[in-house]
């Protein structure tokens, strides 16, 4: 298990370019609008998976609550869109016009204070990143400065995901309850439900994702990234060398949370609703499996992992809904037992040598005398 220490190598850049070509050129070219929207939805999960690669792969912090941050980002965006959809004219049949419909159904008569700032688009954009990051900071600060890590951290993040889900479902009048915030229509007067809008949003999403991956690559190749790897492997040594381990962990956890928030916001925009079923424990663990399938050390692998698992989920549950959970469960076990490095690991150990062998064979043909040393080297 040799993690990539210096990821900004040529191969990684080539991988990035190939990924960019696939999601920006190839997929839009071969899929229709409906499927493209579906791919766009999957790619919003990839934000979370990329965050997990940093958090879990690089720094060894497994969070089972990334759905919290995805959901918070999504809810921030949904609140803005819902307020825009609930103008007094559009909601004049309600007993209190001008507030979201589910509030009216739950006998809430005025807009709660925490909804007020979401009238502003600038505030919403800020909140999409800041709310998850601040919550992550609070959790991270409490946990990491007390040196809670590993298994305990996983359990506590999971508990927080459960708490948030119960809270959202319980406070129906303020959050839309189990149905979530639905019936979102326009963004600054621009209808987001048309096919053109969805295609545009797909590209916005794709470029944001590529930007996030590029940023994550920078983080990983910097000194910061190396310290993260070091503290994953031997935390005490890093601490004794004078580094503030907790600060690095908090940073990477907040960074992952902020990224997940962006993913959530893009999800809301593309899918048109947000509900607690994307916040709780089950989606959070599913997001970990996307990352694990792609390869927990590979940023680019995480995107392929997300696409593959979701594509599998959609295909399976369309034709054999019974089998899907079996397949998913088997996938979990197989990835952990047989391919701990996921797709990226398989690529590294099987495909890359194949390329190398092909390359050497080609050069051998061109240059016959070179064959003998190559054979010895093997």
């Amino acid at each position: 298990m040799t993690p990539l220490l210096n990821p900004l190598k040529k191969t990684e850049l080539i991988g990035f370019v190939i990924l960019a070509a696939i999601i920006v050129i190839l997929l839009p070219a071969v899929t229709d609008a409906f499927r493209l929207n579906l791919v766009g939805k999957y790619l919003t999960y990839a934000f979370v998976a990329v965050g997990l690669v940093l958090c879990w792969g690089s720094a060894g912090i497994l969070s089972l609550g990334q759905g919290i941050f995805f959901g918070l980002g999504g809810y921030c965006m949904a609140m803005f869109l819902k307020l825009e959809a609930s103008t007094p004219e559009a909601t004049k049949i309600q007993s209190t016009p001008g507030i979201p419909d589910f509030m009216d159904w739950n006998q809430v008569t005025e807009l709660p204070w925490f909804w007020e700032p979401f009238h502003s688009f600038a505030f919403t954009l800020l909140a999409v990143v800041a709310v998850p990051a601040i919550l992550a900071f609070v959790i991270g600060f409490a946990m990491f400065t007390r040196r809670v890590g590993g298994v305990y951290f996983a359990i506590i993040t999971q508990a927080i995901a459960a708490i948030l889900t119960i809270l959202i479902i319980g406070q129906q009048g303020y959050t839309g309850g189990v149905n979530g915030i639905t019936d979102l229509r326009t963004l600054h007067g621009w209808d987001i439900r048309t096919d053109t809008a969805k295609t545009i949003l797909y590209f916005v999403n794709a470029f944001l994702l590529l930007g996030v991956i590029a940023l994550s690559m920078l983080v990983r190749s910097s000194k910061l990234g190396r310290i993260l790897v070091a503290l994953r492997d031997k935390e005490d040594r890093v601490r004794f060398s004078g580094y503030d381990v907790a600060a690095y962990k908090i940073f990477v956890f907040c960074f992952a949370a902020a990224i997940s928030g962006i993913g959530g916001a893009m999800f809301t925009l593309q899918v048109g609703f947000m509900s607690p079923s994307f916040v709780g424990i089950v989606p959070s663990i599913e997001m970990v499996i996307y990352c694990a399938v792609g390869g927990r050390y590979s940023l680019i692998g995480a995107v392929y992992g997300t696409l593959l698992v979701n594509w599998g989920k959609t295909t399976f549950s369309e034709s054999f809904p019974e089998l899907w959970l079996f397949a998913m469960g088997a996938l979990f076990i197989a990835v952990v037992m047989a391919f701990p490095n996921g797709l990226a690991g398989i690529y590294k150990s099987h495909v890359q040598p194949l390329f190398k062998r092909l390359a050497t064979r080609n050069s051998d043909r061109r240059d016959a005398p070179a064959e003998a040393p190559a054979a010895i080297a093997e």
Partner: protein
Amino acid sequence: MFADYSWSELGSIFAMQGFAGLVLFSVFVLMALGLAIIFGQMGVINMAHGEFMILGAYVTYLCSNFFQSTAPALMPISFFIAMVLAFFASGALGMLVEMGLIRFLYKRPLDTLLATWGLSLILQQAYRTIFGAREVGVTLPEWMMGSLPLTDIIEIPINGLIVMAITLAITLAVYLIMFRSRFGAKVRAVVQNRQMAGAVGIDTERVDRFTFGLGCGIAGVAGSAFTMIGSTGPSSGQLYIVDTFLVVVFGGATSLIGTVASAFTISQAQSTMEFFLSGSMAKVLTLLTVVGILMLRPQGLFVLKVRR
């Protein structure tokens, strides 16, 4: 809020609410004991713990159906037979899982978590395929139903009393096994210092396997007891797993007494608050408090010094 009630009524409400809390406490203890053994003693995160519980519940269901149709005379004791069967069924499955899966992952606790989550998905779907997606209820023997009138207001349901009795018996049994038997001594030795235990001739792998089996078996009994107060569906296990983990972590993972104490605290807090607030808010507040305390005191309530 209290103005409408007289003093005696208020007293009765608190007594009944306290009793409901005690039943919840019993359920928590039953669920958490198995997990405390597996997670606390072995350090394995078994996300499929809830599914082992449900296996016990389904065994009880099958058993009660079987007795009802073939041997109605044995019905009064069917429940206890079912409980023993549930123990062995879950325990055997647990040992199989340990042999096939967990054994390879002792060094990678986070990966165990993912693998057992996968296992839980498979088990859930298996239950759904075999028993159907609908929740099933177990027919209880006559004498377990109804309630005991204590005063003219307070009534105590018998099944709650039985759940409490079972909990008491199982807690006692676990205590005897862990602290008064050779096997328990071996388990504790392996937990405290694996290498040293191996060096003095304890077969640590065997101990691991039986410990895991014991934990899963207790989960099965918990599931069996559970059928008395609720119905069983394929994904019921999932509902309890987070609570159970919190109970174990809050109690201090390595301490069995801590597990019991934390189950008591959490269940009483929750059932008392349920009277004043809505159920979901009571749960949120309880969990938040637990998480908050864990952030201040990550090692939990009771700590056992362990050399890893």
